[in-house]
């Protein structure tokens, strides 16, 4: 294969909401910036986000950033770094106005202001009652954000390298020198010599059997950095969104419940009354997902079979056709297309689906990547969006907080990158910069082809879903960790049936599987270590939250096939941890 070299001041890897916003900031002035992405930017998974972007505009009722920050901290079961939450909530307001000024087509109130709706875990006055904080564009807010940001990148003439897959990051001690990527169209390797690299590669839900995530969400940024010794933070906290279409994992937005939709068990009962008396169906996602699983395990699912493929119902039929068609049109479309069901007439069969990684690449509030739990920075290396862990979501993310995270921390990181590259110098590019990547690819191409890839992939997804899913147990997690180690070894022996240079999707899928395997192992191992239940990490063998021993962030390093762990204190500077009830 050919090796190409490029020089840029800043390179952004990933073209979703965070990547594009960073690009807009980083490319101001004379800074030479490039965005590389493994899909065309407008195919990025930000486009699938539905419900809304949370900001305390107070357009319909009184609201304050302080309340939003508190809800975020409590929503994260007190594992959130509180200054990060304060920044998120404060900057959210101007971020939403900026998006609107750039053209985002929000739904409007009768007096022409940005319309807002209720959403899980968002309250007024520190938990008093639900508050209308989610700014939305029908039920395709993410689509609108992605399109608007891409339009702005076109306007600002940002350079794109489309369909380039991240292979490696080049580090010299704690300094970033560049990144290496595979050009899918040719099979060539590209070395980007850069002062700053920002990882915005999104999520990694494809570790699990049932997920709302796109095929592309294979955690490439995390895996590439982990391979170079960067620890991953809080990987045990993976959110299962309560309402995915049963059997498919396709997301049905929390916005349905925000508009008044109700969850019912097989007996037609509004079971959330027993789990969250104040917020009911608008309780935070981890609590709702766990409640659904509890109902199913107790035999109260729609089918009544605790061990079977059971589900519950999301009933929106009482909302009326007008509300559904006007405010939730895409949901109606999904139900009609995939279930031949009209939500105006019938309740929707739903089951939790693997949705969002709260953990990821550890960063500070400027988006700079941390080398360890002590807080040492890797100069010139940044991360933002779902792939990063600031930590602003802690043990559980509130709905609408991801879109805010993308724009607030994407913007902050972009601004920091812009300032950084003015005074930073390039690192020295080693002569063997592309060797690691070239070797990895050549090895895969040379291995004799095997059909085992699919069965290994399926087993990984199945055991992760079952044993590192919503409810976990120590012995099952340990078995899973051991099995994943074996599967991981097996993956390294697999070859690819496709030997082409151009558009070798077989090669790409295998590289992605290697990434998912590493992240699955880190996730299972981190989960096993945390002997408490907190937020999305719910254990049958340790059912209570243990602030004495576990009020800290997990750092897990997977280097040269060895797992090692560290912790980092949580920033508790504003609110004292309290029991989490709704």
């Amino acid at each position, binding site marked *: 294969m050919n090796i190409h070299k490029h020089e840029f001041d800043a390179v952004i890897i990933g073209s979703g909401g965070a990547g594009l916003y960073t690009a807009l900031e980083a490319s101001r002035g004379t800074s030479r910036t490039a965005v590389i992405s493994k899909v065309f930017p407008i195919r990025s998974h930000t486009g699938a986000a539905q419900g809304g972007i949370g900001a305390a505009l107070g357009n319909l009722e009184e609201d304050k950033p302080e309340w939003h920050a508190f809800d975020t901290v409590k929503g994260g079961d007190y594992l959130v770094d509180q200054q990060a939450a304060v920044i998120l909530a404060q900057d959210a307001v101007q971020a*939403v106005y900026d998006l609107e000024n750039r053209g985002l087509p929000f739904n409007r109130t009768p007096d*022409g202001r940005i319309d807002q709706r209720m959403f899980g875990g968002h309250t007024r006055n520190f938990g008093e009652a639900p508050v209308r904080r989610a700014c939305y564009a029908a039920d395709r807010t993410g689509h609108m954000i992605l399109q608007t940001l891409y339009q702005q990148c076109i306007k600002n003439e940002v350079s794109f390298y489309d369909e380039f897959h991240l292979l490696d990051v080049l580090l010299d001690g704690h300094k970033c020198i560049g990144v290496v990527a595979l050009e899918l169209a040719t099979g060539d390797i590209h070395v980007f010599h850069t002062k700053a690299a920002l990882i915005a590669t999104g999520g990694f839900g494809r570790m699990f059997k049932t997920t709302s995530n796109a*095929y592309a969400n294979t955690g490439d940024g995390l895996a590439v950095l982990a391979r170079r010794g960067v620890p991953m933070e809080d990987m045990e906290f993976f959110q299962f969104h309560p309402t995915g279409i049963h059997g498919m994992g*396709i997301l049905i937005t929390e916005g349905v419940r925000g508009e008044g939709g109700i969850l019912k068990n097989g007996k037609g009962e509004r079971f959330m009354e027993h789990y969250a008396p104040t917020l009911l169906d608008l309780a935070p996602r981890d609590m709702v997902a766990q409640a659904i699983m509890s109902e199913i395990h107790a035999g109260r699912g729609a089918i009544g079979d605790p061990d079977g493929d059971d589900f519950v119902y999301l009933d929106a039929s009482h909302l009326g056709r007008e509300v559904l068609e006007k405010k939730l049109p895409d949901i109606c479309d999904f139900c009609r297309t995939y279930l031949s069901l009209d939500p105006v007439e019938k309740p929707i069969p739903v089951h939790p689906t693997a949705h969002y990684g709260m953990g990821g690449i550890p960063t500070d509030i400027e988006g700079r990547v941390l080398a360890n739990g002590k807080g040492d920075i890797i100069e010139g290396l940044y991360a933002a969006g779902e792939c990063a862990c600031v930590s602003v979501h802690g043990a559980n993310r509130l709905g609408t907080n991801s879109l805010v995270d993308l724009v607030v921390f994407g913007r902050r990181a972009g601004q920091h990158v812009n300032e950084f590259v003015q005074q930073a110098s390039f690192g020295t590019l080693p002569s063997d910069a592309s060797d690691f990547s070239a070797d990895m690819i050549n090895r895969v191409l040379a291995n004799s082809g095997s059909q085992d890839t699919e069965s290994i992939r399926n087993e990984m997804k199945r055991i992760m879903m079952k044993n590192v899913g919503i409810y976990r147990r120590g012995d099952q997690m340990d078995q899973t960790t051991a099995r994943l180690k074996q599967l991981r070894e097996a993956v390294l022996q697999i070859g690819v*049936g496709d030997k082409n240079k151009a558009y070798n999707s077989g090669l790409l899928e295998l590289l992605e599987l290697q990434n998912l395997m590493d992240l699955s192992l880190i996730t299972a191992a981190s989960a096993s270590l945390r002997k408490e239940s907190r937020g999305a990490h719910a254990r049958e063998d340790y059912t209570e939250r243990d602030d004495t021993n576990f009020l800290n962030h997990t750092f897990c390093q997977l280097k040269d096939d060895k797992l090692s762990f560290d912790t980092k204190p949580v920033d508790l500077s504003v609110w004292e941890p309290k029991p989490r009830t709704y």
Partner: protein
Amino acid sequence: MNIIFSVLRYDPESGKEPAFQDFQVDVKPSDRLLDVLVYIKRNLDNTLSFRRSCAHGVCGSDAMTINGVERLACKTLVQDVTQADGDKVTIEPLKSLPLQRDLMVDYTRFFDVYRLVKPFLIPIEQPDEKENIQSPEDRKQFDDPTKCILCASCYASCPVVAETNPEFIGPAAVVQASRFVFDSRDQGLEPRKEVLDDKNGVWACDGHFNCTKVCPRGIKVTKNINFIKRKLKKDKE
């Protein structure tokens, strides 16, 4: 059900012409065609190449020609294209865009003409602070074109692009332009007149309606093109 999927194959490195390859697969009526393609790739023939991402019709990656009609593979269920055991389903890449490999086509021209219409907000004025005020009625005026996911189904279905005038910027570019032309916050038609009011702009459209029929987002594509035609005519008077 047991169905024969006849898929167009093309390997640029083989020196061979594109040709159909049949795959016989056991499927459920509710399976997405994308699920079938993934199954074929991961179990029968790893070289089969196609674009896909979200798998539920919002990203636009997997637009292709299925039984002669432009559709998203992830939004087309087996039961939508076949009823009986032993039936054949034909899957080909989109027309009018150069073939790259198997079901993958080169979107360069499609994105080039999209950029021509200045597909970004050109504001009339910026508010001092907070949001532009826009009434729900004004918001409704351009709601339809905001749904566009740039999948190119309409572009590929257009007989003008395919035969009579390949220089036509195509339906998607006009839809993207209309999203801004009818947005009360935007300067509208003026900055985009040159590219729209042209023989290769809106006037190339002959009203075949293929675009409207195939749009997976249900956008009234031809209607949007006609809105612009009408506005151009009106402005001249």
